[in-house]
């Protein structure tokens, strides 16, 4: 890749950053055992997607991407609320929030 590509920041750079953030979030979901840290990693992945939306919105001069960001944010906040409520109920019983306790969930 020539030097000018590194200096002249364009859409590709934002997309590459977003891909890297998404990969780190996915590694967090796969490798960590604490449910709360796994949920933080999911938030990281959703944020990476938001970065893609905003970058496309900026570089293609189209506001639809920014509207999508709001929907992603709403769903992320909802997911965090329910996930943390589940983590609290798991913690009440086991005094720990390890992912392996989630296999005995019952309604």
């Amino acid at each position, binding site marked *: 890749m020539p030097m000018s590509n590194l200096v002249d920041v364009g859409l590709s750079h934002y997309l590459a950053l977003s891909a890297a953030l998404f990969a780190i979030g996915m590694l967090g979901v796969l490798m960590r055992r604490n449910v709360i*840290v796994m949920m933080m990693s999911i938030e990281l992945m959703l944020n990476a997607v938001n970065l893609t939306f905003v970058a496309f919105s900026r570089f293609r001069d189209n506001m639809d991407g920014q509207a999508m960001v*709001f929907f992603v944010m709403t769903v992320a906040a909802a997911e965090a609320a329910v996930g943390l*409520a589940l983590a609290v109920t798991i913690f009440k019983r086991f005094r720990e929030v390890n992912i392996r306790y989630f296999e005995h969930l019952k309604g």
Partner: protein
Amino acid sequence: MTLTAQDLLFYILGGLSLASALGVLLMTNPIYSALCLALTMVSLAGLYASMQAWFVAGVQLIVYAGAVMVLFVMVLMLFDLKSEVKAFSRGAVAGFMKLVAVGLMTGAFLAAIYNSADTLLGTSLAANVDGTASTKALAQMLFGKYVFAFEAMGVLLLIIAIGAVALSRIEGGTHADE
């Protein structure tokens, strides 16, 4: 090809967000993970502002760096978790396979971005936008074109609020009758 202020800002904020994202992954104390995640959110808000998505940057700061992170930190403090001895899942082979899977996925993403760079770079960059005008356009889109999705989000939030309260009212957690 000169290094403009926005390019420099991209590298500073992008590097900061990558470093703090790695912090979320690698910190064994969940509180430090949460603080690293807050730093990632703030640097992403800076990136949005540098892309002139002013309103999205503000909402990112208020909703993510504010509300969601407060929720995470409050639940963590409720649990009183110390630094974890076994923070990562077990199994060397499984861990290697996970790394390979994520590496393959990232490689596929980067190859797709690199190969489509010509078509992507050919697109027009929006002129510098007035913050008030772009926010107004965004509002008209949310309450016009996407109004049904917007209302559905309201219903979703109501259901989530009821569900979270119902979940947290269960006596003795999720395993009460065992």
